[in-house]
């Protein structure tokens, strides 16, 4: 196992795993507390369309996926905020259509089925040095944004209406949040894959939620779980020769159930 770290691919994979684990956990806190899990899943499915566009145009699929996912996130946001369509309905409409677009475009590009598998289920070992740098930049941007807007993002997550009344730009912050969600999804594609990314966003934060009643602690614990799942999952999958994305997600799920079992919240709910 330790020899594996000598390989450049394993180093790249580890760095990507740490960054993506942290990124997903941070965004996951907002997703869990604001109930945005379904939007996350929607954006993840849309990223398939985004990847397909990149493949079809012959450009790096990460870039096309970033643009496409952000546009989809905004589409979902605008539809659910401005019309009488519920958020989950808006997601349902968008995620089927963007996925369908992806399937159509991939179909036009014959012989691409092999690579497709790595986008759907992740192939952390195929992480390029360019991917690592992109992830470093995006993680830094998201981290800085969350630190600077810490109190404001917490406010709109807790009570968006009151934020609006008292002059906090809740609408713009919401769009910023779903934009960061889209970026997170795309950065995670190579590590866990389109199908599993929403699990990596939701699960560490949901596990952390079981253990604390403080927002900041929830953030810190979630990040620890996210990074832990990614790194340990990566090493395990390398030793055992199994799929990395699935190992990472199953590990974080195990952590979640462990936390739920020992949760003070659960004990309190029982008392009530």
């Amino acid at each position: 196992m330790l020899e594996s770290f000598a390989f450049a691919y394993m180093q790249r994979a580890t760095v990507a795993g740490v960054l993506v684990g942290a990124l997903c956990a941070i965004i996951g806190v907002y997703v869990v507390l604001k109930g945005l899990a379904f939007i996350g899943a929607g954006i993840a499915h849309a990223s398939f369309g985004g990847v397909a566009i990149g493949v079809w145009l012959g450009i790096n699929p990460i870039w096309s996926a970033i643009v496409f996912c952000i546009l989809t996130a905004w589409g979902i946001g605008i539809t659910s905020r401005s019309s009488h369509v519920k958020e989950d309905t808006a997601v349902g409409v968008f995620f089927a259509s963007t996925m369908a677009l992806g399937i159509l475009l991939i179909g036009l590009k014959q012989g691409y089925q092999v690579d497709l598998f790595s986008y759907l289920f992740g192939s952390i070992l195929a992480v390029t040095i360019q991917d690592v740098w992109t992830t470093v930049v995006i993680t830094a941007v998201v981290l800085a944004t969350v630190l600077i807007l810490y109190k404001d993002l917490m406010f709109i997550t807790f009570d968006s209406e009151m934020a609006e009344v008292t002059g906090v730009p809740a609408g713009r912050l919401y769009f910023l949040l779903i934009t960061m969600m889209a970026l997170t999804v795309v950065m995670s594609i190579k590590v866990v894959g389109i199908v599993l990314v929403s699990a990596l966003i939701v699960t560490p934060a949901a596990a952390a939620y079981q253990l604390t009643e403080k927002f900041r602690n929830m953030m810190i614990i979630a990040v620890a779980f996210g990074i832990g799942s990614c790194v340990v999952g990566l090493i395990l999958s390398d030793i055992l020769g199994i799929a990395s994305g699935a190992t990472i997600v199953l590990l974080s799920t195990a952590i979640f159930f462990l936390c739920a079992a020992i949760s003070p919240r659960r004990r309190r709910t029982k008392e009530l």
Partner: protein
Amino acid sequence: MIDSAETLIEIKDVTILRHGLTVLDSVSLTVSRGEFTAIVGPNGSGKSTLVRAMLGLIKPDRGKIRVFGVPVDQLHEQRSKIGYVPQIFDIDINFPVSVFEIVLMGRYGRIGVGRRTRQDDRDAAMAALEKVGIGDLKDRSLARLSGGQRQRVFIARALANRPELLVLDEPTTGVDVTATGNLYSLLRTLKKEGVTIVLVSHDIGVVASYIDTIACLNVSLVAHCKPDEEVCSNALCEMYGSHAAFFHHSDTPHIVVEDHPDA
């Protein structure tokens, strides 16, 4: 008296439709600075809708609303002068924040996006908690409070801002008699300090002695009058259907229904 004062809220011919139903029908209402206005009306009469429109949370289908002299959808910095206690809290009581942090959120608009809270913000939040008598609960989470205690947290949050305009939508729901009494005497103090208050309530009788005007709402504005005026009693009769009227009893008029004189 009202004409000479500065108009703080100006609602003009506001009509709001919901699912094709008219919820508010060309309502016009002005509130002057320093005035204490009560909004009364039966369930479903549009009180909350009017209040939410007043705060820019609902866009009227017709009509105009100005607050602090500005169209409500263009309010920016002035928003930090508004305190609001909503009727329904669409929030997660298990959200990982303490009571103190929730009350501190009342200051966030004033502090500004991306800026940190300072000592005076924390002092104001603590003072607001003390004012509603739950200073000792500051480190609890909402899940560990009773319904009435939660309501007081949100009242404290509205006060933390030291608002010039305080809008309360049935703030005493679930609050016990003592705390209700305390809230009303607090409102009286705030009024003396010049705060403009809009209160939606069913038990306006309790505060009627220092209410300036009552807006009787039932989809349209049935009456806008002083509490001791006869039109006001008539309007109440009309709205509540039966024999509701003000019952003047040692300077504190109550709304009563004749069948239950003790109510």
